[in-house]
């Protein structure tokens, strides 16, 4: 893995965009600080993380059992099940449901899985209009743009950019006032909710013992989607299961706090089957599409722990790489540290293989993960697997052998240090180098300064008795 062309290109573009960098840095820094504060209000967050990890691992270890229990309960409730092995199967199932009920207009609540399967494109190709109802997703849909964050999809757009989009696409005056923009969206969307016959949602968590799907949202769109249209399709990855409602409580306590520093999101929504006799509203037909699309392979493989992920985005907000380049640089649907694992393992972007290398392995993501996914360790394993699968460039092992040879002898090591210092000191200003010579040029080209080597080495200082 010598060249990382596409990730590098996208990252370079992102780094050159000052407006984007500021928006992302501001949003992620705030969100990460709030997440830490929210964790502190739990009686023992480390113990709770451990429990959440155990719950997820136990579920994954026995997933066939819990999946079957969930399916049995859904059938008892009168919910139709669709099993989809691939993204295409999943989309085809939704299109078939839409056709069965003659639905031409759909409303949709935010779902990363439907981004993964490109459901909107499949629906439009089938002549079904679909409107994203999450405000951020709605903005992106208007602009034909993609989400760049798991919980805050339009984080790469600042207020002016949002106002421009509204003015251009909805034919309203340009107003850089979030309240006015939300009022416009509320009015526009009400008619859509009311006239739609099909609602599409994701699933945050599926409870095996009761056949319940759980949705967490803040805007009210999830409740609206499942209230007015007569058909509700929920699409879920097969790893979303938890055994019991009590387990769901544990996951929810961590999810809200980790994602948005809320003890609970505004709407924490439990749906157990379709509308029942005597009820005035709610979908009368409910369908659940359970999607594999690579997940059973992950379950069988050595990266199983990534399936613990609850998509809270805490690892994005803390990641020095994400904070610098934002979500689009990752290419795939899932950005940030978890995306470096999920994208190569799931659908994959053209250069997915390069993603595990776009990490400093600093470990911050592991510390922020509510279900304790050891992302750095998994990234190392993924790099190792890649190296075993195919030969890298021949100079790389040679270079490493040469470096080992230098480092093994104190004399050679000191000599090397001296040469490097001679080479680099003249280029530094204020102890930083902003343009390094090859082979270090790549570091500074990516808009990073390199710390200059100190004037004297530790050994020299020691010899002079100054340490």
């Amino acid at each position, binding site marked *: 893995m010598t060249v990382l062309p596409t990730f590098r290109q996208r990252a370079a573009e992102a780094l050159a965009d000052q407006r984007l960098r500021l928006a992302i840095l501001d949003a992620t820094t705030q969100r990460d600080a709030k997440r830490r504060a929210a964790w502190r209000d739990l009686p023992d967050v480390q113990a709770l993380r451990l*429990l959440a990890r155990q719950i997820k691992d136990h579920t994954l270890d026995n997933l*066939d059992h819990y999946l079957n229990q969930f399916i049995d309960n859904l059938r008892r409730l009168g919910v139709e099940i669709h099993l989809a092995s691939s993204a295409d199967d999943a989309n085809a199932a939704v299109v078939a449901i839409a056709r069965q009920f003659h639905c031409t207009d759909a409303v949709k609540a935010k779902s990363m899985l439907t981004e993964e399967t490109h459901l909107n494109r499949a629906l439009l190709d089938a002549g079904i209009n679909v409107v994203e109802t999450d405000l951020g997703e709605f903005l992106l849909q208007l602009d034909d743009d993609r989400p760049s964050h798991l919980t805050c999809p339009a984080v790469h757009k600042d207020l002016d950019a949002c106002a421009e989009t509204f003015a251009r696409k909805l034919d309203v005056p340009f107003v850089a006032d979030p309240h006015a923009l939300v009022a416009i969206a509320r009015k526009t969307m009400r008619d859509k909710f009311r006239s739609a016959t099909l609602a599409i949602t994701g699933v945050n968590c599926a409870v095996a013992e009761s056949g319940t799907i759980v949705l967490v949202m803040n805007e009210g769109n999830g409740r609206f989607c499942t209230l007015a249209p007569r058909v509700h399709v929920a699409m879920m990855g097969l790893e979303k299961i938890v055994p019991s409602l009590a387990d769901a409580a544990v996951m929810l306590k961590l999810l809200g706090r980790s994602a948005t520093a809320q003890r609970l999101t505004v709407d*924490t929504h439990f749906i*157990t089957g379709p509308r029942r006799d005597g009820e005035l509203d709610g979908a009368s037909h409910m369908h659940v599409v359970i999607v594999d699309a690579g997940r059973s392979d992950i379950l069988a493989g050595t990266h199983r722990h990534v399936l613990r992920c609850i998509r809270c985005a805490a690892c994005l907000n803390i990641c020095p790489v994400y904070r610098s380049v934002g979500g689009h640089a990752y290419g795939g649907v899932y950005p940030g540290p978890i995306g470096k694992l999920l994208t190569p393992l799931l659908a994959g972007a053209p250069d997915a293989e390069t993603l595990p290398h776009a990490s400093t392995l600093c470990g911050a993501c592991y510390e922020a993960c509510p279900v304790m996914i050891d992302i750095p360790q998994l990234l190392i394993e993924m790099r190792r697997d890649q190296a075993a699968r195919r030969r890298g460039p021949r100079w790389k092992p040679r270079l490493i052998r040469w470096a080992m040879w230098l480092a093994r002898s104190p004399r050679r090591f000191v000599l090397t240090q001296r040469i490097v210092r001679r080479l680099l000191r003249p280029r530094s200003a204020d102890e930083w180098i902003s343009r390094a010579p090859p082979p270090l040029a790549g570091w500074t080209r990516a808009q990073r300064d390199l710390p200059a080597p100190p004037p004297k080495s530790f050994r020299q200082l020691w010899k002079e008795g100054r340490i």
Partner: protein
Amino acid sequence: MAHPIHGNRRLLDRVAEATNQRNMAPSPAHDENIIRTPIDEPLIDRFAAEAQAVGMSVSRTTEASLIDAIQSLRRTINDELTLVEPALAAHRPELKTLPRSLTHPDQDQLYAAELGIVGASAGIAETGTIVRDAGPGRPRSFALLPMTIIVVLDASTLLPDLYDALARHRPNQLPSETVLITGPSKSSDIGMKLVTGVHGPGVVHILIVQDA
């Protein structure tokens, strides 16, 4: 009535192969000391403080003065068209006599109403959360469509923790929908600025009914 399973059952076989567990280990035990947030004060005090912290208004009242409390809140929004939840009005007939209020609106009235007066199935003190189970006489829309809602919460239904709220029903007897409402509908998707009243209610008043 069990529906057929559509699609390829091979998916389930693949999962079974991948898990490959023959003896199911017991699921991890829940130590409630690490799950529950300790609450030292009376539940009603904690509930009120938390609900206010997430942007809802809370007042305490009694059954006898409930109507007065509702009317004074209603005056602040000029007695606009109001939806009154049938189940809530069932044993409070005065609620049905409020001017410009409906228990059985048509679709246009439903979408035009500015205020919803609804009940709560329970409250969660830890988070200041309103718990609403759907059912006959308790339409989901009444607590969602109007910009302002008044929620009547019986103090005796207050629970300490989310954990308790999810243990109210047996797993095979859950209502078709339970929604936990923690604050007004909100978003900060636009320029990281917090705005309330996106698709759901922007103003939530809670009236806690205590014994006189």
